[in-house]
Every structure is written in structure tokens, then in C-alpha cells.
């Protein structure tokens, strides 16, 4: 499929600049994807507008010029499609799942998800209104765990920062975040049975002044090469 897409787009020239709105949690991966895409299509430039998924959706609906939207949750994508903001059906291009992150020294002695409910363990979660917070709630409910966090952070990175600095004993974040943080945090896996899978949708935008390249980028992300990069970062297959 990728090869076919590549040959058709060559006819209408994949070139010029596109701007991709991508969820903050995709910052590292998409920067890498962008570079690969530019290499594959000389003459193209990919720029990014990173931000919280909900903030990006708000920007798109307020008329922010862009070509592609990659959201960390279907909900925010729906906000955009509902306003006719996408020119094609969104496709899921990656999945993510949660993991417990603990500081390398593991002061709270957390070794499983259920340890989060122990008294005296300081836990940071995302706030319920953002995708990772909603997911965390789902997981905790699913496992019948009553966890009282010391803080509800506005995004995943804030949770991770608090873990890194040792301010909390554990935080619930995405697998990809633990991977990106490398040695600075330790991951405590949550088995798939107890976990929940988040979908990441992507779609070209109606606003786009360079629909061809926009489509090519979406295609590239869903292509084998793109998936490999996402997989390396810890994302799962859609």
C-alpha cells in the first residue's frame, strides 16, 4: 500500500512545507518522523505545532493554519471532525498503554500497580480531564484500587517530572514516557489484563493548503517505516 501511495503522489508532487499539530506526548517521536519524511521526500519541510491535545483541537477550531492533526485521544479528534476540520476520516496510527513510573531508588518500594493503594505512597496521576488521567482512572477502577494521589497533573510530562525529581514515589504514565526517560525513572509494568489501551488518531486538515503533502505525511506515519519508529519509541500497533 505504501509503495502505491508513493507512486501516485509523485505525480502531483509531494513538496513544500506542511505543519503538523501533534500531541505533546508525541514530541520526540514525531520530530524523528518528520526528519525521516523529509529525507524520503526531498523538497519538503515538516514543521510541528506541539501542545496538549485539547489545546490543539481548540486552536484548529479557532482557525489555526495547519495540515495534519495527530491527537493523543479520539475525543479531541472528534471535536475537530465535528466542526468539519478534517478532510479525511481519522485513522488510528498508534496505541499506548499505561505503566507505573518510580524513581530509580524506588523509595516507596512500589513493585506492582496495587502498591499504589498502600498508605504512605505518594502518587501522582494526570487529572481526569486529560487522556492519561482518564485512562489511569479506568485502570484503577478496573482493578478496584482506591488511590488518593497527592496531585493531579495537567499532563503526562508533569507526572514524569515529579517522579524524576523524586517528589512522588510513583506516577502513572504511558509506556512511551518511561522509555523516553531512559535511566531517570524505572518502569513497573501493568499487565495487559489490568491495563487499558489508548488510541492515537491522525487526519489531514481541511484548512490544509498542501493537501497532497499532508496526505503523504499521514500515509508515512501509518507506513511500515513510520510504524517502526513509533514502535521503537514504545508505541503499540493500532
Amino acid at each position, binding site marked *: 500500500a505504501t509503495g502505491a501511495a508513493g507512486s501516485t503522489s509523485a505525480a502531483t508532487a509531494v513538496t513544500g512545507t506542511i505543519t503538523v499539530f501533534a500531541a505533546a506526548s508525541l514530541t520526540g517521536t514525531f520530530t524523528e518522523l518528520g526528519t525521516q519524511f523529509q529525507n524520503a521526500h526531498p523538497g519538503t519541510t515538516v514543521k510541528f505545532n506541539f501542545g496538549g491535545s485539547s489545546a490543539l483541537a*481548540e486552536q484548529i477550531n479557532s482557525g489555526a493554519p495547519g495540515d495534519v492533526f495527530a491527537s493523543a485521544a479520539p475525543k479531541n479528534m472528534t471535536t475537530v471532525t465535528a466542526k468539519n476540520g478534517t478532510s479525511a476520516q481519522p485513522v488510528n496510527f498508534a496505541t499506548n498503554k499505561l505503566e507505573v513510573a518510580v524513581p530509580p531508588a524506588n523509595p516507596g518500594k512500589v513493585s506492582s500497580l496495587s502498591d499504589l493503594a498502600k498508605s504512605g505512597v505518594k502518587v501522582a496521576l494526570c487529572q481526569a480531564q486529560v487522556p492519561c488521567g482518564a485512562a489511569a482512572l479506568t485502570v484503577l477502577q478496573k482493578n478496584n484500587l482506591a488511590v488518593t494521589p497527592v496531585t493531579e497533573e495537567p499532563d503526562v510530562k508533569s507526572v514524569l517530572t515529579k517522579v524524576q525529581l523524586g517528589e512522588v514515589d510513583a506516577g502513572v504514565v504511558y509506556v512511551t514516557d518511561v522509555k523516553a526517560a531512559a535511566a531517570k525513572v524505572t518502569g513497573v509494568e501493568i499487565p495487559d489484563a489490568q491495563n487499558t489501551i489508548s488510541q492515537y488518531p491522525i487526519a489531514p486538515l481541511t484548512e490544509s493548503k498542501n493537501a497532497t503533502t499532508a496526505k503523504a505525511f499521514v500515509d508515512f506515519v501509518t507506513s511500515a517505516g513510520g510504524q517502526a519508529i513509533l514502535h521503537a519509541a514504545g508505541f503499540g500497533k493500532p
Partner: protein
Amino acid sequence: MPLLALLIRAPWSALGSLLGQRTVVTALRLSVECASAATVISIVLGVPLAWVLARVRFPGLRLARAVITVPLVLPPVVGGVALLMAAGRNGVVGQHLDSWFGITLPFTTAGVVVAETFVSMPFLIVSVEGALRSSDLGLEEAAATLGAGRWTVFRRVTVPLVLPSIGAGAVLCWARALGEFGATITFAGNYPGTTQTMPLAIYNAFQTDPDAAIALSLVLLLVAVTLLVALRDNWLRAGSPT
């Protein structure tokens, strides 16, 4: 003008029900309390600091003044991280606070106050320093000849004379503390009832329901404007020579 737009587009109907919510009322009270506490601390620490900047000649004065202005420039989130590094559980100072006194600041209401103070104190210092620079040294000299030492002069002459500026600075400081978001969420976290101030509640609401967020902003604005009108007016009247 943007404020007008805010008013026009506001979901007035939703306001009533929002105000009924317990979390909103709690957040509002917490905001006002923390901002007021931060203001008081800023006055207590900031006025003497402003005095030093205005009156004491020492090498590095220029640098000191610039450092004081730094929290103005620092993106608040970075300010929060800096605070964590300093006063967090593993922070440069924080680890001793914890082990010696058993005090932890992050994730507590005290932490909110610290974060707000860090961000808003410069406003007070800048206002007061300006006033001190332009205030009449002659009166301080007169006080000295009457037997008043440095501290008495400061307390009984210098401070009363710049009171209007301290008032104005405190208003700026309070307003800034009330709207503080980044440093607070980073340093103190976001937990309803202990560290969730109005701006954090507004941010929360924003993720799901922008209209509700706007309504909440209006509530915050209303409280702020009401208090400002009431207070500033009193201060200005007390301070004006007419």
C-alpha cells in the same frame, strides 16, 4: 476589549450552577487565602529588601536588582522546577527541611503560598524600591538627629512615607499571585482542597468544557475586580496628599 469579548461570549446561564459547586467555592477560597498569604509574606520580606536595594550601596547592586527581576522573566513552569530543585523533597534546601524539621512543601497549601510568593514578590519590590528612591531623605536625616537609629527610622519614618506605594505594590503582587498558574502546578501540584487554586481549576475545566472554564474565569475576575476596586481606592485615598 478582549475582556468584553469574554463577557459577550460567556455562558451566563451556566454561571449559577457552577457557582453552586463545592469545588469551585473551595478553589476560590483557597486562591484568595493563598494570594493574601503570599502578599503578606512579600511585604514582610520584600519591603526590607527594597530598602536595601534603594539605600545601601554595595558592589553587585546592579546584579542583585536584576536577579530580583528574574522571576518576572522566568516562564512560570521553569520557576516551579527551580523551586522543586531548591525546596523539593530532594532539593538543595528541601532535603534538609525534610530531614531536620520534617517540613515538606510540595503538594501542600504552604507550597502554593511559596510558589506564589516567588513569582509575585518582585512586583512589590520593584514598586517599593522606586518609591524609596524618590522619597525625601531629609525626613530620615531629621529622624536621625532626633535620636532614632536605623531601624527606628525605617519603621517609623521610611515605611509610613512609602505606604501608598507599598499598597500599590501589594495590589499588583496580590493580583499576580491570584492568577499564578505555572509555578503553582509545578511546585505544589493540583489537588482539590489543598493546592487546587482557581487558575488550576479553570485549567482543569478547560480540558473538557471551555465554556465552563470561561465562566470560572469570570468568577475569578469578578472577585479580583471587586477587591481591587475596594482596596486600591482606600489605599489611594490614604496616600494622596489632597
